[in-house]
C-alpha cells in the first residue's frame, strides 16, 4: 500500500512527469510561463482540476459503460474547469485577467484526460485523487521552474505581480535580482519557452543518466541483487 503511493509520487513528480516526460499540456506550459506568478496560478488551477476530475472519474467508473466513458470524462473535466474559472474570476481577479484564455484552455490539457483514462478509471477514488495531486504537482513544478528561468533572464525579477495571486501583502515578494537596460526579449517570447523547456528536459535526462552510472558502478553483488528485485 505504502509503496504504491511512493510509486505514484515518484511517477508524477519525476519518472513520468506530465510536462518533462509525457510532454502533455504544452500549450499552457509554454504560453503562460512568462513569470512565476502566472505559472503558479495556472499550475494551481490545473492541479485543482486534475484532482477533482480524477476523484470524480474514479467514483463514477462503475456506473459508466465503457463506450460512453470519454464523453463523460469530457463533461467532468469541463465542469471542473468552469468551477475553477468562476472561482478565480471571483477571488483572484487580477490573475484571472492575466491568464485570460488559458484558464478555459485547461479543458484541453491532455494530461488531465490522460490521467482519467490511464489511471482514475481503473483505481479507487483516494488513489486516483493522490495520483491527480502528484501529477498536478509535477506539472506545476515544471511550470514554475520554467516561469522562474524566463522571468529571471527576461526581466531580472522573481515573483513580479505576486499580489495578483496572493493579495496585496504579496507585492513585497517581488525581488529584482538583475537590472537590465534592455530585457532579454528571447526569454519572454515563445521561443524562449521552447528553449527553456528543452534545457529542463535535458537537465532531467542528465540527472537520470548520472544516477544510472552511479548504480552501475556500485559493488557488483549489491547491483545484482538490486537488478533481481527491480527488473522491468
Amino acid at each position, binding site marked *: 500500500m505504502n509503496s504504491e503511493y511512493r510509486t505514484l509520487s515518484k511517477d508524477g513528480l519525476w519518472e513520468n512527469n506530465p510536462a518533462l516526460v509525457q510532454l502533455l499540456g504544452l500549450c499552457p506550459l509554454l504560453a503562460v510561463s512568462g513569470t512565476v506568478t502566472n505559472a503558479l496560478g495556472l499550475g494551481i488551477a490545473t492541479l485543482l482540476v486534475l484532482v477533482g476530475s480524477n476523484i470524480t472519474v474514479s467514483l463514477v467508473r462503475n*456506473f459508466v459503460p465503457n463506450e460512453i466513458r470519454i464523453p463523460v470524462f469530457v463533461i467532468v473535466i469541463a465542469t471542473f474547469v468552469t468551477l475553477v474559472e468562476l472561482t478565480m474570476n471571483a477571488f483572484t481577479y487580477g490573475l484571472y485577467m492575466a491568464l485570460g484564455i488559458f484558464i478555459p484552455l485547461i479543458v484541453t490539457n491532455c494530461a488531465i484526460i490522460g490521467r482519467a483514462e490511464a489511471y482514475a478509471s481503473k483505481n479507487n477514488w483516494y488513489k486516483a485523487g493522490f495520483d491527480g495531486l502528484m501529477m498536478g504537482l509535477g506539472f506545476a513544478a515544471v511550470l514554475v521552474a520554467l516561469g522562474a528561468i524566463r522571468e529571471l533572464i527576461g526581466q531580472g525579477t522573481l515573483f513580479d505581480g505576486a499580489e495578483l495571486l496572493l493579495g496585496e501583502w504579496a507585492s513585497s515578494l517581488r525581488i529584482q535580482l538583475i537590472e537590465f537596460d534592455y530585457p532579454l526579449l528571447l526569454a519572454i517570447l515563445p521561443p524562449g519557452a521552447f528553449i527553456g523547456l528543452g534545457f529542463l528536459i535535458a537537465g532531467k535526462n542528465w540527472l537520470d543518466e548520472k544516477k544510472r552510472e552511479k548504480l552501475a558502478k556500485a559493488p557488483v553483488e549489491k547491483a545484482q541483487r538490486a537488478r533481481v528485485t527491480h527488473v522491468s
Partner: protein
Amino acid sequence: MLKNMQKNGLILGAFAIAATSLVVATQYLTADRIAEQQRGELLRTLNTLIPAAQHDNDLYADCTLIAAPDALGAPLQPVYRSRLAGEGNALAIQATATDGYSGNIHFLVAINDNGLVQGVRVLQHKETPGLGDKIELKKSDWILSFDGERVRSENDSRWAVRRDNGMFDQFTGATITPRALVNAVRKAVWYGQENSAELFAAASNCYTESTQTAAAAMNELEPNITELGE
C-alpha cells in the same frame, strides 16, 4: 441495440444535468462577487485619473455609451462623467488604438473641462513585451507624458512622436506602438473637447439591460491570447 442507446443516452444525460446544475449553482454563488470585482477594477483605474476629491458622484454609474467609431476606435465606448455638486468637471473616455504593432490597444483618457489631459492609462494591449509594453505605467512612465497636454486643432502636428517631429518620445526599437497611441489619444481628446457639453448631458445608459454593460465592455475586451494560441 436500441435499448443500449437508451441506457447510455440516459446516463450521459444524467451527467450533463448534474454538471450543469453544479456550474449554475457556482455561477449563482460567485456572480455578485465577480460583478463587484469588475466594478472595483474599473473604479481603481478611474480614480487614478480622476482623484476622489474632484467628484462627488458615482463615477462608475455616471456612464454613457457613445457611438463615435471614427474618433474612439470601436462602435460603442463608455464615457464616465465626473461631477462636483452637479457641475461636470472631467470626462474619462475609453478608446481604442486600432493600428498598434499587434492588435488593438484599449485605453482610458481623462480630460478636464478646460480640455487639458488629466491622464491616460492603457487597459489592455498585446504589444511586444520589453519593447512596446512601455506604454504600461508599470513598465515605464512614458504614459505620463500626456498629462497636462492639450490638443489645439484636429490635426495638431505636435501630437506625434519625435521621429515624426512631434513632442512625444518614441521607444528604442518601437515606434509603431507609441505612434498609434499618440494618434488615438489625440483623436479621443479632440472628440471629448468638441463634444463635452453633449457628453455631460447624455443619459447614463451603460448598465441598462438592453446595452452591453460598460464593465463588460472594459473587462472582457478581447480574449487575452498573448503568446501562443491553442
